[in-house]
């Protein structure tokens, strides 16, 4: 069924994004820039991983997919549909903050729309998650502003993280082959429409913070993630994530 395949693809990419970004954000736990930010990143990481769990649960309960632990911890790199933005390593707080800013505004807009999806389990979940994402975007916006207006150095660091992350952020909106089906079935109006709304939103915020929005018309979006072509960073991430669980395939933990 076309409708089912379309919804499944949407759920997988959303779940995979959430799991991998949650994993990345959890890398700050214990070593964040301030105790408050350490706690904030841990809390957002838990939310994201929780979202992944709930999305995989829908796949399990409504589409006959394996259970969330198998979907999250036992698939190969070639089965993941996350975008490249979430895969990039956690090396620097400016990049993590900007990634969180760019991704969570897209995520917030996506869930806002999905509240009205004709597929009830997803609409219900979207209503719930939307509220959580609101705190994430608020947090991102406050910190982007704080650091953009902190001093010259912090402003420059945030600006260069935005420039660096933007082509990857555009990869969030890599179109799916099911766009039309999703529109016809009144699930989701499509990645293109989402990107347009997102650009408007973040452009305003970036400029309000005194930063510059890169000219996205001349950027080459980093695509491929949705088709399971990944950066070289995903494989090691998954190897690390599954280190314990691979010790014994039949054990329960």
């Amino acid at each position, binding site marked *: 069924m076309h409708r089912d395949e379309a919804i499944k693809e949407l759920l997988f990419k959303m779940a995979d994004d959430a799991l991998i970004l949650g*994993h990345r954000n*959890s*890398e700050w*736990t*214990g*070593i*964040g*820039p*301030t*105790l*408050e*930010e*350490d*706690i904030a990143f*841990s*809390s957002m*990481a*838990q939310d994201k*991983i*929780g979202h*992944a*769990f709930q999305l995989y649960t829908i796949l399990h309960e409504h589409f006959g997919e394996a259970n*969330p*632990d198998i979907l*999250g*911890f036992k698939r190969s790199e070639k089965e993941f549909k996350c975008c490249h933005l979430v895969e990039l390593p956690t090396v*620097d*707080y400016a990049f993590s903050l900007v990634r969180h800013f760019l991704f969570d505004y897209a995520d917030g807009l996506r869930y806002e729309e999905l509240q009205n999806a004709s597929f009830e389990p997803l609409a219900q979940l979207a209503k719930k998650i939307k509220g959580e994402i609101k705190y994430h975007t608020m947090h991102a916006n406050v910190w982007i502003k*704080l*650091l953009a207006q*902190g*001093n010259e*150095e*912090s402003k420059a*660091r945030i600006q260069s993280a935005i420039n660096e992350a933007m082509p990857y952020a555009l990869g969030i909106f890599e179109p799916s082959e099911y766009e039309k089906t999703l529109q016809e079935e009144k699930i989701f109006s499509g990645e293109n429409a989402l990107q347009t709304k997102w650009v408007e939103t973040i452009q305003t915020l970036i400029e309000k913070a005194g930063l510059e929005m890169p000219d996205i018309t001349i950027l080459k979006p980093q695509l491929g993630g949705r088709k399971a072509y990944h950066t070289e960073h995903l494989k090691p*991430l998954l190897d*690390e*994530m*599954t*280190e*314990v*669980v691979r*010790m*014994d395939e*039949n*054990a*329960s*933990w």
Partner: protein
Amino acid sequence: MYGNAFIDPNDPRNKQEVEESQELLDAFQAKIDNGQKIEPSDWMPKMYRKQLTRMIEQHANSELIGALPEGTWITRAPNFKRKMALIAKVQDEVGHAQLLYNAAETLGKSREAMLNDLMIGKAKYSNVFNYPAETWGDIAVIGFLVDGAAIVNQLINSKGSYGPYCRALKRICAEEAFHLKQGHDNLVALAVGTPEQRQMLQDAVNRWWQPLMHFFGPPDKQSVHSEQLMRWKVKLASNDDMRNQFLDQYVPKILELGLSIPDPNLRKNSETKRWEMSDPDWDEFYRVIKGDGPCNKERLAVRRWVKEHHQWVTDALLRPERVRTVPLA
């Protein structure tokens, strides 16, 4: 974890240095004897302030450094439930550090100064965090037994005389109870699991037993008694009493899971109702305190990394109107 500050009463720095009015001292003692709490704006003896600052600071440092061994396993936790629980747990520990630094700040030392003293190795933290978490089994043992030991200590300390510290500890203990539940759940999953899982768990128990016996500090017969600190309700139970309480509570729980404890001499004397055990290696305890444990250098290197990599954030935030002075608890 864990205000088991090791304070050496023989250290000349810990001697009462200034003459203080007997009247004030008596009134102070009377207040404590009445069960009243000392608050930041109250008069307090210099030595009381000094010892408490050091104790709360070491406790805060322990929470923060304690996040590191477990933190390295967040990215390897084997399923959704464990991954989320571990992030939440380590996040709580960082939150405990935050609460405790706030409590210590009410005594006059800034968080920044405390983090700095931690980083340069001047301030201490619990020895137990200078040991590595080698396997997932260690995470179960830390979550149940190290947190368990910490709770024994923190519950006792929460009855102390300093208001801000007691209130922080009340909040902390509520969260610790949850850590213990999660830790136990994780421990049971491994204990009833495959032979490999059981072995991994038993190995972890074996590795952690000595650090756990060290946790409450040297035996009472070795450590010169700290009567003054007891009278001031800074220290509320002797090291041996706390260790004994821990063994009472946890030995049965370890044995009921079919695990063994790596000390053939461990037994409860039915007459004295006290635990007897082989003497743990106290030379090692002092070696680790002096900075020569398996992970001391690595832990401080991480704190230096945090400082160096985030200096730009701290600088950007350094505006006088953003400095917070009100304690959270």
